[in-house]
């Protein structure tokens, strides 16, 4: 009996070991239907930047630190784009109370991001976002490689540092 058990355990260990050999790829963007500012339906799993990094940032009109973060980045966004090729996608979780105000507000502020409307929080839920601002960094393969919540003056420096490291193939750190 003991021999049988030992043999089974060894076989199980062998199988488990075999399973571990599969390469681990990162979590990709989930597939959720949201709308862009032109009213067109977009599948979030199809968001891409031609192999270059992407930043997905969740915000809302009523969230002061979110507006702060996006305004601070918009001042340096052209430099970021020309240096790293990064694209920032700003996902608004404003619901029907304020979602129609997003386009005029974004235009008036002169933001040049791609803005998506997630009116019932489906994309937010699928990305496990709790509090906003919540920002994700996605690599050229569509994998989420880093994320960060909250914003204070100077946090954008950490974000661009991660983008530069990603482009250079260096480890991102914490």
């Amino acid at each position, binding site marked *: 009996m003991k021999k049988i058990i030992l043999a089974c355990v060894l076989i199980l260990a062998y199988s488990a070991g075999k399973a571990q050999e599969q390469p681990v790829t990162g979590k990709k963007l989930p597939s959720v239907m949201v709308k862009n500012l032109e009213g067109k339906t977009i599948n979030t799993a199809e968001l891409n930047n031609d192999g270059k990094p992407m930043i997905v940032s969740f915000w809302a009109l009523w969230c002061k630190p979110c507006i702060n973060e996006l305004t601070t980045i918009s001042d340096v966004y052209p430099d970021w784009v020309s240096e790293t090729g990064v694209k920032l996608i700003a996902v608004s979780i404003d619901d029907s109370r304020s979602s129609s105000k997003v386009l*005029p507000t974004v235009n008036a502020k002169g933001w040049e991001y791609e803005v998506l409307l997630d009116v019932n929080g489906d994309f937010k839920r699928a990305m496990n976002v709790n509090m906003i601002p919540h920002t994700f960094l996605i690599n050229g393969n569509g994998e989420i490689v880093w994320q960060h919540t909250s914003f204070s003056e100077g946090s954008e420096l950490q974000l661009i540092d991660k983008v530069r490291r990603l482009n250079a193939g260096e480890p991102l750190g914490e």
Partner: protein
Amino acid sequence: MRVFTWIVPALVMLVLTGVNAKAQSLTEGGRVSGNFQLDAQVYRADSAIGAYEVEEKMRMNTFANILYTNGNFNAGVRVESYLNPILGYDPRYKGSGVPYWFGSWKNEQFDITVGNFYEQFGSGLVLRSYEERNLGYDNALRGARVKFMPYQGVTIKGLIGTQRFFWEQGPGIVRGLDGDFALNEMFDKNGVCKTRVVLGGSFVSKYQPLEDIVVNDTSLLKLPANVASWAARFNLSRGGFSLDGEYATKLNDPSSINNFIYKKGESMLLQATYSQKGFGVIAALKRTDNMSYKSKRTETGNALDINYLPALTRQHAYSLSAMYPYATQPNGELAVQGQLNYKIKKGSKLGGKYGTDIALNYSRITSIKKETADGETAIGQSGTAGYTSPFFAFGDQLYFQDLNLELQHKFNTRYKLLVSYMYLNYNIDVIEGHPGDPMVKAHILIADMTYKYDTRNAIKIELQHLATKQDDGDWMQYMVEYTMAPKWFFTFSDQFNYGNAEKDRQLHYPTVAMGYTQGSNRLTLTYGKQREGIICVGGVCRNVPASNGLSITLTSTF
């Protein structure tokens, strides 16, 4: 026996290798992710501010979401625990359990979800099931939902379910059907037409078993077991212009909220916007008449709502400007709102190096005009048709009026400033249920300054002042926040009701707070006194009683 000692392991190995190969394809590509949040408060009794003794001393709300994704398949679970629910949350949340779980499968044409789900039709006027965790609001549907995309630009949704009612399900069953048609994607694939048109329609029906309800002491009501509602919507946009409209109507639905009248309900939302770079303008009109739609006739709290009626007011981000927030009046309101956003150009005299942002916002909400249904019966009398109401007439009662101007300017890389002025009329009698109290008229001034003394360290100072002759009188508040990006923040603030007519109620509410963030993990600690007040998100509010003590929040996404 001897034979078996090698046959059994060999068989097991064969089976396992076979299973393993299958398991690899099952688990290959499978990902687990989720989040977690914990909110705990330790309470101290403080009779001066009205913070009563809390027997447990500490209360805690926590939840954790776990999501499994593998190709087209998703499954998830949420575990919640309220031991006991934090003050201000509905006490019916007490306990722990798994209120939310689902499984879904989707491809390009179909998306099927079984279990619990959230959904919105149009602007939510006939159906919106959503969660707002920091309000304790959750009207998730439990049943099944199918989305069908037969053709590009066409989305058809069908659903059936019961609604979450704390740890149980509500007594009603909700059925819904919605169609969304993006005409340009359907007929104009080459994008020749410059005008974008989207049309949509919804039909929702609720069923609740009949029950005995008696009104006016003797009348037993003949209730409808099924109540249907439908809505039609359109979006038109061309260049910088956009026009959105939605109209919804509900059949007779006597309930506790409308005092058991048989009148139909109606709701209309119309919004026009124009924007271009540096300028945006919005005008909106909303009419609501008897549109509370719940899956339980006798429910009066913030639960079991099938639809969502957005409040047409601006959500304010500062505590004194958010002191008197508006709550949607489902029985009837007529609202108008206008907003203007303008950016004074960079490089101009008033704009400075970075430009100046200006935002002007005006909202006005009144009651609707109600007239007797047949000339004799009192308006709103239970068991009758209730009243009639001419569509575009403003009623006599002002509920809310808010004029707000905000200017934001960045002087240089170190210093930026925001100033805001607001004039507010707030019908505290109707909105908060304080009968007889006069309309609160308040002037609110805010200055918010940020000074960065190097790339990662900044100090923010907020000064707020609220001046009013009604309710508790004048308030002032200051807050100093020191941030060390990206991980730390420290805050000290005090709210002082110096203008209160009663000297012993001229109270201070000081607090200190600190927070640490690492990636997507965040911990904040707050200690001090919190004023009794209201937290509103989207026109849905909850009362927060006064409290004194320590608050801990821990949140994480993995």
